[in-house]
């Protein structure tokens, strides 16, 4: 029976500061395929990883604009063309009265897009991931901070990478293998 090749190496820390330092060191060493895990947001580490949250704002803005145009367009089309009702000779295109629904639908679309956009950018939902095979990974949702260096990175070499990670004084370094 052949053993499944390793997915990569996982280093475990017990505080956000050593994790941030480890991410910085790995980025300076030229690592590109790496992921960091924490039980709460660590914005400094995210910045070092080159993650920007700006796209979510643009996605929400774009979706809100589309929702607004659709809502206003529907109200205008229905009231002027499909089902015009003459109320004492008032104009059919009563645009101020269409604004409340436009506003509501814009917010609705922007909120839904913010959530769905966030999930899509994060690649979620995804129930399987190599990281879940790591020893003690379940403590990341409580009080552990982990740095994962993927075997897919050209810099990866089981021995030298493990040495590099141990140099960052983690609690432990372990190889991540599929079950």
């Amino acid at each position, binding site marked *: 029976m052949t053993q499944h090749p390793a997915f990569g190496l996982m280093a475990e820390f017990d505080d956000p500061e050593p994790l941030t330092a480890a991410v910085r060191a790995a980025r300076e060493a030229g690592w590109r395929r790496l992921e960091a895990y924490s039980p709460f947001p660590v914005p400094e580490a995210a910045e070092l990883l080159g993650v920007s949250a700006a796209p979510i704002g643009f996605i929400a803005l774009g979706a809100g604009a589309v929702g607004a145009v659709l809502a206003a367009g529907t109200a205008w089309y*229905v009231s002027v063309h499909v089902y015009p009702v003459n109320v004492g000779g008032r104009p059919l295109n009563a645009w101020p*009265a269409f604004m409340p629904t436009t506003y509501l639908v814009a*917010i609705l679309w922007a909120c839904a897009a913010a959530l769905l956009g966030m999930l899509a950018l994060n690649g979620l939902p995804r129930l399987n991931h190599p990281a879940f095979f790591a020893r003690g990974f379940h403590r990341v949702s409580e009080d552990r901070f982990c740095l994962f260096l993927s075997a897919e990175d050209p810099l990866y070499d089981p021995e030298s990478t493990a040495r590099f990670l141990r140099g960052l004084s983690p609690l432990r370094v372990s190889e991540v293998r599929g079950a």
Partner: protein
Amino acid sequence: MSDNTIPVAEAALRPGAWGFRLAMAAAGAGVVVLVASVAAVLVRGVAVWGNNIPHVWGFDLIAYAWWIGIANAASLFAAVLVLRRHGLRTAVNRFAEAAALAAILAAAAYPILHLGRPWLFLWTLPYPAYTGLWPQFGSPLVWDFWGIMSHVVVTSLFWFIGLIPDLASMRDRAARHGRMRAARAYGILALGWRGSVAHWHRHQAAYRLVAALVLPLLLWAQTVVALEFATTLVPAWHQARLPLHVVVTGLPSGLGVVLALAAVLRQALSLERYVDERDMDLLARLLASAGLAAGMAYAHELLVGFLEEDPTTRDALAARVFGGGAPAYCGAVLLSAVLPQLLWLGALRTRTLIVVPVGVLAAAGVWLDRWSIVVGGLLRDHMPAVGPEYAPSVAEWGLLGGSVALFAMVLLLFGRLVPAVSMFETRHEESETEAEREER
């Protein structure tokens, strides 16, 4: 900073104690009453209610506007906590969000039932039907449909986005206990959250963005309800100030409910560490301020109303405030504006036995204000003879009591199945406090 949020997860995983079962049974009985009351409307029609001409709205709109007010103030509180990043334990926002969601679910049932033929509520959607009918976008009733729908979806999203990482924590805790079925259920709901730093970064951005977008939506939800009244010709309702009045006087209800819930939950689930005295103090001050704002709205109502040139409008206000509507009006002012002022006394703010009744009574006071507007507002009209009085029927009381039971049941289930306070925010905060201590 070790296992400091474990008790929160454990509180949700522990089998229910007798107190929980008792509360659940009581809420279940109430929900049976709700089902019976809804069935009565569906089978026999709206004639089982006490509604008549001119009282076409009655209990239904009272309860709707009331629940929306609770949902709004609770969401407002949750959103403000999320948007201010530091200084406060943001953990309390979780059940404020849950309360908002439960209240909006209770609220959403009313306008649909009120249609008379609720199964035709789809007609409020713009779609090409064989009837050739389309909604009228100039009507506040159509705005209301979009308002409720956006409110339900956005409130649920706000709640769910905040919950995703905590569901992942629950998944890992349940797996540790060997409860694989629970772990799988939480795991699917957590969408495979693995706590990646990059994911956190985007998650926080989306969470704050939705919190910011909830704020303008809240103003609008109550405004639309008020506009439905303001666009009629009924003298007591035909007021430009009505939207402001309904939004402001609604605040004590939601804050009162969240305050009472916070006080009960921290004792029932032993979460004193996570919802501490400072949180309770802040909530109580907020309720007192909301009462003050509501008091100003009432004062403004009297001032503007009696300066009104039109004698019919003045007469309608007088009948509502001093005449036949006086009990409801005075009850509303006393309970929702005057009573919360007690909470300016620091000694009373942290006493459960004081804040729970004050919070619940403030919510009851807002209900009386809605009664005063909907029923009391029809005591005088432009016509000299006004028509029969309004007397709610058993089916209406059943609907109101039943929706309170539904609200309680949804919250009980939330308290049991998902973490009652935001675990990741508590963890974050504790690590920051520790770091500050080390720097010193």
